[in-house]
């Protein structure tokens, strides 16, 4: 949460001191604060979905643990212990399958777990991720998407992908420009080009594409772990 709070705190005050950047940075600040709430919503949804299987698993495995010294013995309880062991295996597999589907449905980098934009999207995403075999044909805003519901960003240049990454992390134009060591005007030009290529109307929609996992940001070449360009 502290990372998200930091984003919100960093973006909002700056908006008041930045002339024509005010509305843009305010929007990003608002996005950051919405993210905090949505991360919480996603967490709650995940806890709710995982709670049943995890409770069952803990009961079965706990029972095995408590009876571990008797497992090799034969007796009246043998069948019921066998059922417990088999059920523990089944529940474990069920959880593994669930986690697999979560991974399939949410392609954003792990450190962007805070980056789901809206509660509605989060719940919709979760429902889709939790439903096996679901593959939306179109994005939430009717944008053209591939068979997996993802936006094609192959037309973006490496620099545009870098800019998209930073925008999706909630950075303002000034902050992003400073990170890439370019002017904020240039940064905005890249951002405008991205929006044009992806067919989005505003920054919020752009961020939404990324944080909902619809636009997949593969790590560009020449990009180090800290996210700085090395060219």
């Amino acid at each position, binding site marked *: 949460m502290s990372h998200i709070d930091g984003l919100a705190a960093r973006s909002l005050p700056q908006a008041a001191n930045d002339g024509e950047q005010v509305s843009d940075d305010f929007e990003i600040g608002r996005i950051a604060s919405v993210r905090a*709430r949505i991360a919480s919503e996603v967490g709650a949804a995940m806890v*709710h979905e995982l709670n*049943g299987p995890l*409770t069952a698993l*803990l009961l*079965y495995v*706990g*029972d095995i643990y408590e009876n571990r010294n008797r497992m090799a013995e034969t007796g009246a309880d043998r069948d*019921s212990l066998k059922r417990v062991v088999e059920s523990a295996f089944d529940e474990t597999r069920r959880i593994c399958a669930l986690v697999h589907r979560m991974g399939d449905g949410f392609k954003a980098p792990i450190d962007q777990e805070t980056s789901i934009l809206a509660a509605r999207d989060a719940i919709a995403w979760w429902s889709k991720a939790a439903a096996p075999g679901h593959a939306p044909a179109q994005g939430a805003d009717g944008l053209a998407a591939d068979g997996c519901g993802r936006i094609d960003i192959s037309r973006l240049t490496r620099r545009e992908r870098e800019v998209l990454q930073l925008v999706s992390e909630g950075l303002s134009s000034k902050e992003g420009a400073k990170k890439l060591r370019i002017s904020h005007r240039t940064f905005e030009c890249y951002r405008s080009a991205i929006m044009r290529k992806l067919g989005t109307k505003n920054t919020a929609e752009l961020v939404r594409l990324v944080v909902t996992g619809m636009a997949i940001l593969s790590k560009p070449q020449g990009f180090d772990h800290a996210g700085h360009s090395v060219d």
Partner: protein
Amino acid sequence: MAIAPVHITAEPPGVAKTKILVIDDDACVGAAIQAVLARRRCDTILAHRAIAGIHALEQYAFDVVMIDIFMPGLNGIDTIRHIRSSSQVPIIAMSGFRLRSSSDAVDYLEIATRSGADLCIQKPFQPMELVEAIEWSRALLRPH
């Protein structure tokens, strides 16, 4: 949505056994509780909807009722209130959300207690926690 039928264990409740009603929409939780308690002199009946559990309470006498908070249809809190309006059976509330649920900072287990639950346990819980909760609840029935 069709109401899931009340599943009654094959063996009729014995006199000395603890009779437990588990109301939880997640069938795997009830099945696990049933399996763990089967070797501890307990007869467990499962209801996958609150309304089915309430009907079971009207037909059979139970020593303890375990109720999940988040269920489709009639939720656990309202179920506890309904049962408490006509019965003093010990109630154990179960929920995965201990302190808060996402955006609204609400302790649902605290609400469950205020609504009439005698004990709350947070999921996931271990067999020993379950057994202790059952034993603690049974003690409520004994004369002081």
